[in-house]
């Protein structure tokens, strides 16, 4: 009799070759989708959301593109996941990691077709990845000791990262911005301290780094617009009706006059609170929560600048820059640390008013104001800058630096090729395939730039035959150039993460020989 059905109705099962084919096809499709964005001459994608308003995003950030896709193929999901992780962990190289994993799978597909067992391919890939990593770590440059040189390394990395983004026209400007911002962090990787404000209008070149802090808020009516030598109290407290928090308390009155009395008491309570706050000897009060009109008026009377509804990040950053602490009770003014800054004023950026704190004590946080023609440009600029900042902050921690422009891939490919020649057995095919996948990256970069990739990559390979060669693809002139002279650098940490996660993902997909898809959960139609 026929084999019983084991799985539920809509669940499907794919086995052996079919399963493998499904995952290869899915993964390669994803790779082909993002690979045109790779490199300085990579193209952007327009993404239109299916949500209300059909919002449009223009980007060439791999992670952003993949995040917005609705994918059904499980293997493709693995690739999207690694891209996301790369974004979280090092911030850049989100496209490269997907492309490399895809190329590894493309090569693996050929090997599987040539009847090599996936497990053999995996062990070959593993050996190759290990060898490639060693090759890279031998060729790194580490300028940790020399601050001057290190700074120029950072500049180079920032320029390289930005050159593939929309900011490439003004990369010099933005590289300087990013490096300055990161240097202020003094080794911390907390990018929260760098605030990015986007204001449409002007051109990208008008973007600037502000050493102080800009809060995107307006100053309350009737309050001073400019304060010198400000003493700032940063608070997180309810300034609406300060409720009694004891559970179950309620007001029960029997006449109108009592209502009025209690209302008076409430007002009195609020007035007292405001008095206490003012007693700190401050002239600026920033609260995370709302400030109602009544206390605001009291503040205005006392000549204190009150800013309400600053979001949580804003509060934290403000506390960080001014050196104050976030207060919620106000009974002992002597021990609360109060933040200081030289000048608070309302400034205009474009058409909007913002509050600008300058001359702050602690220099850790800073603000980058981005200007640009449209929201799309600004969004993309923010993403690009975010990538650059991430890479730089990671590089500050791990100061090893590599050359860019396809140089690391060629170095790795050469070493891996050596290894393939030395390895006996079927594994050597897999190792060779790994090296081919590595070479695919410079090939794609050249292709995207409209160059003759076959010729260029061959030249590059020949150049790399010599020891200690710095050759890479110079996309601008369309030839092989010296990367050290051109000042194209990449962070070792990013490259290593790309290599390892791509290999891990390829391995994971290769190991699969069966895909079981459960029936999609039925969604109830809301009519």
């Amino acid at each position, binding site marked *: *009799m026929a084999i*019983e*059905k*084991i*799985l*539920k109705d809509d669940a499907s099962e794919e086995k052996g070759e079919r399963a493998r084919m499904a*995952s290869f096809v899915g993964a390669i499709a994803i790779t082909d989708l993002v690979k045109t964005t790779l490199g300085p001459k990579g193209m952007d994608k327009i993404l239109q959301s299916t949500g209300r308003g059909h919002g449009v995003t223009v980007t060439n950030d791999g992670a952003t593109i993949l995040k917005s896709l609705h994918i*059904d193929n*499980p293997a493709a*999901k*693995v690739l999207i*996941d*690694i891209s996301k992780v790369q974004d*979280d*962990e090092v911030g850049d190289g989100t496209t490269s990691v997907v492309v490399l994993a895809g190329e590894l799978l493309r090569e693996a597909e050929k090997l599987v077709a040539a009847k090599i*067992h996936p*497990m053999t391919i995996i062990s070959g890939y593993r050996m190759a990845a290990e060898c490639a990593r060693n090759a890279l770590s031998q060729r790194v440059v580490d300028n940790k000791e020399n601050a001057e040189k290190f700074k120029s390394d950072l500049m180079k990395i920032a320029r390289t990262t930005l050159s593939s983004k929309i900011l490439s026209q003004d990369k010099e400007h933005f590289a300087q911005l990013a490096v300055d911002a990161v240097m202020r962090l003094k080794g911390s*990787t907390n990018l*929260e301290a760098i605030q990015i404000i986007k204001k449409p209008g002007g051109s990208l070149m008008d973007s600037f780094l502000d050493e102080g802090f800009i809060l995107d808020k307006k100053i309350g009516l009737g309050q001073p617009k400019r304060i010198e030598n400000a003493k700032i109290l940063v608070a*997180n407290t309810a300034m609406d009706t300060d409720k009694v*928090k*004891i*559970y*179950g*308390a*309620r*007001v*029960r009155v*029997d006449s109108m006059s009592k209502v009025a*009395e*209690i209302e008076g*008491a*409430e007002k009195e*309570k609020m007035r007292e609170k405001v008095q206490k706050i003012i007693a700190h000897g401050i002239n600026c009060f920033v609260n995370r929560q709302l400030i109602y009109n009544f206390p605001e008026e009291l503040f205005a009377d006392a000549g204190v600048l009150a800013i309400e509804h600053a979001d949580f990040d804003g509060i934290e950053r403000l*506390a960080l820059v001014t050196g104050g*602490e*976030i*207060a*919620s*009770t106000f*009974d*002992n003014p002597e021990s*609360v640390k109060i933040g200081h800054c030289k000048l608070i004023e309302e400034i205009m950026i474009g058409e909007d008013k913002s509050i600008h704190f300058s001359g702050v004590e602690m220099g850790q946080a800073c603000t980058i104001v981005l200007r640009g023609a449209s929201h799309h440009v600004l969004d993309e600029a923010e993403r690009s800058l975010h990538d650059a900042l991430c890479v730089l*902050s990671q590089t500050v921690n791990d100061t090893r630096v590599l050359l860019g422009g396809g140089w690391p891939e060629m170095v790795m490919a050469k070493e891996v090729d050596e290894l393939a020649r030395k390895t006996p057995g079927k594994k050597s095919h897999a190792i060779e395939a790994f090296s081919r996948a590595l070479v695919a990256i410079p090939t794609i970069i050249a292709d995207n730039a409209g160059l003759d990739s076959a010729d260029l990559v061959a030249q590059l390979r020949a150049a790399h035959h010599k020891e200690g060669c710095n050759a890479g693809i110079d996309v601008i002139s369309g030839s092989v150039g010296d990367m050290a002279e051109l000042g194209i650098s990449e962070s070792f940490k990013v490259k290593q993460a790309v290599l*390892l*996660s791509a290999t*891990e*993902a390829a*391995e*994971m997909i290769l*190991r*699969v*020989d*069966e*895909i*079981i*898809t*459960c*029936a999609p*959960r039925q969604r109830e139609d809301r009519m």
Partner: protein
Amino acid sequence: MALAFDEYGRPFIILKEQDQKTRLRGLEAQKANISAGKAVARILRTSLGPKGMDKMLQSPDGDVTITNDGATILEQMDVDNQIAKLMVELSRSQDYEIGDGTTGVVVMAGALLEQAEHLLERGIHPIRIAEGYEMASRMAVEHLDHIAQKFDFGPTNIEPLVQTCMTTLSSKIVNRCKRPLAEISVKAVLSVADLERKDVNLDLIKVEGKVGGKLEDTELIYGITVDKDMSHPQMPKQIQDAKIAILTCPFEPPKPKTKHKVDIDTVEKFQTLRQQEQKYFDDMVQKCKDVGATLVICQWGFDDEANHLLMHRNLPAVRWVGGVELELIAIATGGRIVPRFQELTPEKLGRAGLVREKSFGTTKDKMLYIEHCANSRAVTIFIRGGNKMMIEETKRSIHDALCVARNLIRNNSIVYGGGSAEISCSIAVEAAADKYPGVEQYAIRAFADALDSVPMALAENSGLQPIETLSAVKSQQIKENNPHFGIDCNDVGTNDMREQNVFETLIGKQQQILLATQVVKMILKIDDVISPSDY
């Protein structure tokens, strides 16, 4: 559907709406059941052994899991068939009891069912088959006892334990760094093990994962990690020699459970209430400070005001810590969980040498490490890896390895792996079969054949000629009377499993055989399947 008629020729209605139900009976039912069981086993068969492949499972919500852990595959598969559900149960009970060998047990059961089918075709009664299997399984288990070896290990000599864990890990995706992971697992188990009582409480080992980094960065922390950060961003990030107050009461105004009302009808009442509230907050914080705590870990949230007061008094605090984590912290630091502020005393504080906050990656991901605890009996294994699926799979693999190490501490007998134990049992059972009079003899012989299927699958998955390899190993075992020969999956060049250091636990193997036999017996005894037809 069979119908019964009374003397007037009218049909009896025996089952409710019987014409709408499908019914299988007799041999047909048994065959249908067997084929369902076999189908499940066939799915898992390719996952067996170090060269086994993984399965990709897509859940109803679209999440992807990649694994080769038998129990996980079956659990996530949307199984509909009743018999297939039995197989899922089988794998799950092996998981609960032993933790490892969840794939093997299903493959074994599948093989037994396949053999039973042949016997049924020859007209042997299912109960006789079941009895034969039962006898054979007893023989096999006895034989395992016979060939098992004890090996000694102590806190200083962990090598044998590490080797056994490595055998388990080598079939998983993490086999790239099986050695470090095996060492981590063994060390973790040993540090929480009670060697006197031969017991291990695996609850004391916490397995945490965080995406990012690489597998090699996985580490064993002698302490606890909590996926939380300090409640106030400006609290100190590192505390030396922390004295920890572990609270299960919130820093919030009291909420009596009985229904009550506080009526405010005069201005005075309003003001006293307010003052009391302020005092209440102040008291709470002061209590913690008075007993000498330098860190407060709380199961509940804090009010903004309380948070600031804590910050103000220089008392770092962590909020919203889960119950399980709270217990672990209490065990590790030797503190007591305090449900009320009034009950805080200096003796109830936990102690830890170092508490620090560590941030990861470019996003604001922070974790709290509590290390150098007063009582080092609670440990954490912290896994890093390239993507979410990798971490999940590593967690499962580590769980298996931990279970294996625990089983060895409970009972330090091992058998050799690589199919050698199955082959040896098969030879023993085969030999014993000839001595049995009666029909059961056939069943016992079939059982021996079924035992061969595990090494056969191993050989098949490793790309070897299954029948050729198996027969060669079998004859070698008989000729040299040495039960250590198995399948050389990794192409090392020798098939002596003692040399390859491939071990499995004795109880794991015995449990596999017993569980598989039990389930098969149950399936064989079914002769009638009534199921409602689809509607």
